[in-house]
């Protein structure tokens, strides 16, 4: 189930072929981005962390073990940088304000309510899968390959996530 062409491109980039970056980015950016957005919940900050993730990953490409899952490796870096970002932000911004960012309009790039709700009620795995399938438009087969998990697991988590979102939205509207 491994993404062979992605692995080949990583190897090519390691050998100095910078053209390979386009394919690597194309195949991995959504997974990394949603890993970040789940924690950061702000589009602009998530984009900053995404950029930092790729810079960090590309500069330490030699540390990636060829043949293991590149997307998973990238997402580990993304998660770590997103957590760092949150810690840094907590130190810099008043906690009260941050809690009520929507109320005070301090959220710089508000994400739509449904996405905020998803980040609050779904597990990281459910969130990642529902975003990749429903928002980024990947097929479940592609997501399974990307995350190196069985397609049945993708289907199950995707459905669970949609059910949870539906239930919460219905409760909100009631």
């Amino acid at each position, binding site marked *: 189930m491994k993404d062979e062409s992605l692995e080949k491109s990583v190897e090519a980039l390691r050998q100095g072929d*910078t*053209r390979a*970056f*386009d*394919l690597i*980015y*194309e195949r991995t*950016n*959504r997974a990394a*981005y949603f890993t970040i*957005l789940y924690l950061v919940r702000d*589009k602009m900050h*998530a*984009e900053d962390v*995404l*950029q930092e993730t*790729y*810079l960090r990953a*590309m*500069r330490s490409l030699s540390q990636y073990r060829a043949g293991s899952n590149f997307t998973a490796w990238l997402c580990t870096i993304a998660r770590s940088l997103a957590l760092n970002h949150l810690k840094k932000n907590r130190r810099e911004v008043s906690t009260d304000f941050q809690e009520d960012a929507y109320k005070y309009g301090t959220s710089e790039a508000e*994400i*739509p309510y*449904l*996405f905020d709700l998803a980040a609050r009620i779904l597990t990281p795995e459910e969130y990642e899968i*529902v*975003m990749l399938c*429903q*928002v*980024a*438009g990947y*097929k*479940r*087969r592609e997501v399974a390959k990307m995350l190196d998990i069985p*397609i*049945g697991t993708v*289907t199950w988590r995707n459905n669970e996530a*949609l*059910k949870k*979102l*539906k239930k919460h*939205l219905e409760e909100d509207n009631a």
Partner: protein
Amino acid sequence: MKDIKKLLKSEAKRVLPDEKVKENIKQELGYTAELPVLARADGGTETVKHKKKVLIPAIGAAAIVLILAILLPIVIPGGTSPIPVPLPGGNKFAEITDADSFYAYGAASVGSLLASESAASPVSSVESGAVVLFMKSVSDESAAEEKHVETVNRYMSLVEGLLSENAIEATAVAGEDGYEYGMQIAYTDLLGDTVSYTLYFNKIFVSSEFDEGETEEEYAIEGELIAEGRSYPVRGNYETEQDGGESENELYFRAYLDESERSYLEITQESETESEHTSTETEKEYVYTRYENGRRVERTVVEYEQEDGELELKLSIEREGERDELQFESARLNGESVLIAEGTLSGERVRFTVYIRESGYHYVFEDGSYSDHGRYDDDDDDDDDDDDLDDRRRFAGV
């Protein structure tokens, strides 16, 4: 559940990362700063140029409006338009049910896009007199708008094929050039002419299923598509999968535009069958993606929509960070075949009519401005007007 999916999808643009992130990363890493070089279908290359926009002086615009008001009733055929009569087109997607029909559709649609590219550039000369170039006078802004029309024009042949009455027909022919199988694919355009392409290929077995006395085979292909007198290497895949109440398919047809295979035009089928309570709903759309040097430069989603009993074709074209959406309906106007289109181009609402003529496409916009563009043509090289399918492979501008 479907509503949640739609909600998530509709907000995607607000949430997904901007394309500039990638460019920033590349710049930081020093990967590339040069302008991407695009490989054209005709084998040449072209550097991507960025659009410049200049505001037209208000006085100039006012003068144009005045000239149009006086001249348009004279210049434009059927200036005071009678109500167009919609035509009964057929949903071609419904005919795609197996590997054979998918590859036939892939070859027909990709072939028509490649043919349109050759015919669409350069843009044919614009009528003098009213001196109108699509909506605005000659300026950088009109050049930018014209670029949009050129993009739309590349899809006109596909739109014609999908809104025409007859089905896409595939006939088995002998394999050539070392390929075991051959298929001639023909469809009619909106002027009733037949357009055809030929596909030679080898099959790569994927799976087979025996159902009600018939064997249904799934296979991938490798071969070449002959369109507009040129040969394009192609690859295709047809693989379907059932998973509980939902089905998921991996269907693609790809025509390569250069030897390195980093530039290609790909069509994929996106379909989702979902059962909820007692009803089952299948949404099917076709996505055309163009890659240049391994980079995605254009993505177009094509789907049918049933509006008040009329069949319409919806195109969503994403290019250079912009998204244009157009809906086409085939009709007759003043005895001519036309396509009525409306949607958004560069964020602006537009409505226009495309007159389909042997000589080319004549675009007429709501404000009366017009623009003429090339259309594939089969009789440029010979004077006789026979309907020999092989001759139909030749198009204008080739």
